[in-house]
């Protein structure tokens, strides 16, 4: 797991419009793979892009306001805490926000 230990840097990642509502997209942020999700409520989350179970691409998963479900074997992870609700190891969650000018930034 890659919870940042040193000083985190803010990275400007993409315009919010690049994230379709309710879906995920993956980016390379500071040399790491990060999956961004835009929930229907508008909240954006940034988590590690690969599933700890068997490396599934989490950005291809389905989400609700609480969890992302991995497309490969349907393990689920809380988008805010990273905890798995299906007994897998947790995933890394990175602080993430949307600037007033509509850009998504991630701290890593």
């Amino acid at each position: 797991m890659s919870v940042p230990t040193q000083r985190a840097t803010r990275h400007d990642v993409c315009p919010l419009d690049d994230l379709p509502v309710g879906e995920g997209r993956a980016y390379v942020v500071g040399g790491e793979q990060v999956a961004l999700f835009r929930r229907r409520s508008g909240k954006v989350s940034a988590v590690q892009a690969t599933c700890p179970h068997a490396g599934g691409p989490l950005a291809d998963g389905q989400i609700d306001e609480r969890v992302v479900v991995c497309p490969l074997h349907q393990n689920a992870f809380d988008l805010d805490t990273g905890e798995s609700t299906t007994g897998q190891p947790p995933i890394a969650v990175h602080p993430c926000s949307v600037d007033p000018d509509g850009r998504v930034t991630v701290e890593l």
Partner: protein
Amino acid sequence: MTATTTRTSALPQQRDHKRRLVVVGNGMAGVRAVEEVLERGGAQQFDVTVFGAEPYGNYNRIMLSHVLTGQEQEDSIFLNSLPWYTENGIDLRAGVAVTRVDTFAKVVHDAEGGTTPYDVLVIATGSSPFFPTMEGLRREDGSMLDGVFGFRTLDDTRALLAAAREHRRAVVIGGGLLGLEAAHGLATHGLQVDLVHSPKHLMNQQLGPEAGRVLRRVVEGLGITVHTGVRTKGVHGTDRVTGVELPDGRVLDADLVVVAAGIRPNTTVALASGLDVERGIVVDDRMRCEGGAGDVYAVGECVQHRGQTYGLVAPLWEQASVLADHLTGADPTAEYHGSRTATKLKVAGVDLVQMGLPGPENDDDEFVVFSEPHRGVYLNVVVRDDRLVGATLLGDVRKTTFLQQAFDQGLPLPEERMSLLFDLGTPGEEVGVAELADDAQVCNCNGVTKGAIVQAVEGGATSLNAVMGATKAAKGCGSCKSVVEQITQWAAGGNLTVDESANWYVPGVPMAKPELMTAIRERGLKSVSAVFRELAPGGAEDAKSKMGLTSLLRMMWPEGIEEERDGRFINDRVHANIQRDGTFSVVPQMKGGVTTPEQLRTIADVADKYDVGMVKVTGGQRIDLLGVKKEDLPRMWKDLGMPSGYAYGKSVRTVKTCVGTDFCRFGLGDSTKLGIDLETRFQGIETPAKLKLGVVGCPRNCAEAYVKDIGVVAVGNGKWEVHVGGAAGASVRKADLLATVDSPEEVITLAGRFIQFYREWGNWLERTYEFVPRLGIERVRAVLVDDSDGLAAGLDERMQVTVDNYRDPWLEGQEPVTPGQFRTSLPLVDLPLVPRRPAGAPGGLVPEVHSNSNATPSTAEVSR
């Protein structure tokens, strides 16, 4: 809670003081004993302290096998959670091991240096895996090589699961119950497993040689390589294990080794405390320890009673009950006289129950055997003096309940011994649950009697789930579930409630399908988010319900719904099937399995151009291009210019055909043309689960129509049989004959009517092989063929609208529907990572890369 007591002098026992009961061992036996004590009002008599070396509450050790396969999650196997101890005023010292007991001073010494006085002590330390001496198993400093595991605790299981995710080859040493369950668990994670067992046949403790041989065939059928009569010579590896050496010098490569070569009672504490120990801690019929000074008892796998030690849970329920009778004074005459044990193997796909003797011992023992090795069936019973003293049921366990009762209670046996193994058609063979005695133990794993289930039902538990929750029945190996269900039904009379959520169409909206459809129609809901907003508790979305709702809405509103891309599973967002490494597979439509040189040329060119990992002919009669990058999908479809074959959809998939009248000398009908027509008409239509069709030109059935969701068979004179509800996947079921019709047109109408019926009434993910038997073929026939309910015209009409509104989704590839629809989701991984298999190479290349869980950051910066 884990603060240790440091009072050293034991208070003299006083009448008005509660006595101090200290239990060493927080496992299944120790905590069961405490539960039994509490049940007898023990809370008034005792202050209870429990020491447990493991840092957890009490869990069901049996279920570790299911945790290893992934069938159960860790948190669902706890029998007593930490709050349970607090609620019952029990001082739990979780993670604190006891080192010795001073039975004269009546003080327990623990590994943290604490001392705890007691008035009554119970030792329930269980047992540990036995590691036989093997060359190379330990490093010079005595520590075990990395990659060597036992299989006893939750921590062992977690470590095994972690190792299984990272490695590919495992060797399991020991072919008993535990070894087989470990091997199966690892195999389900895709590991290549070798099982090495030194006796001549598997489960030799429980089975005779013949049964062992049949079991071996069955286990090998699961993909596990079995070596019997082979003693492991040694283990290879300097720091981490790399292989296991056999006596003939052969080395089995291994990334991990599980040693399941037996268990040994944990007797260290007892020995250090001066108690009598032979193979286990010696106890009398009241579970009292010999040696040392009084008031010390022992229960569970650590004990030896009348020369016998046990490795199963059933005996410890009886022991705990006798012990509690003595401790609380509830029944000072209670005695334990030993247990008759039965073993059940918890390996999916292998039904095995064994009780008592594996075979005859005396000259006049009766022995009835039935063996059918190629089907994996072996059954026997041993009868002595008209009583059942042994039974082995492998591959057919239908008679378990009866035999178990006969074995446990010495019931009179039927004259005709054969009927012990088979239902001979005479009535009253199954022991009706009504006749079972109240104290008959139904669930051996959790020691639950029929009486306890009846009590639970009377106490208000009126669904199977509620009874299972209240009594823990059927929560062990699960083999008694059907009996528990029957008793629940019987006890509840007409008042049985079914578990509500089991009927919901999707987990996130508490409504069964008909109810949900009515609500959707009444409110005119046309998007997944609208359904959640209006019908889900608190309006909350549920990720796992989205796909099912999208399918339902598309069925209900054929003219179109308010599309929400996040309502679709990834496959339906990009129209290809996601693979284990995040690449996709593309299966172009090839109606009826018929293709042309031009199509093949196009496919070949595309395969070259996009450098696909493998080109494969599928079991569905078309061609699969595997290992395709997501980014390449739109251009690839454009180059292919062929529609999707829906190999990924919960929808109509393929129609397999045979060559029929045009070419086959036996052909009775033009199966090829009919197959193509069916596929053309119904292509891509959403169904509750995938739907596969087959059309054959005669009953020789070359395209396997009898085992399809819809199978059509030409029978001559222009007649066609339409069969429904067949399958040959995880379940194999021959389809039921729905009707025989007179023309291909009628086949198409009837097939369409069936599909629409299934779309409207089938549960989400319910295949037709479940749907048809659920309703019964007679009912299906009445509705679809005889139009008993006046539904036929409506079904036909709605199917026609659906067909008219069909659009080929591959067309959308050209213009992405959402930003980044085809962006990679693993930007730093060099895709594809699936093994590459050049055409014609026997077996292809050795797959070097099989999963990318440790994706190394590499090249591709992604364009933003």
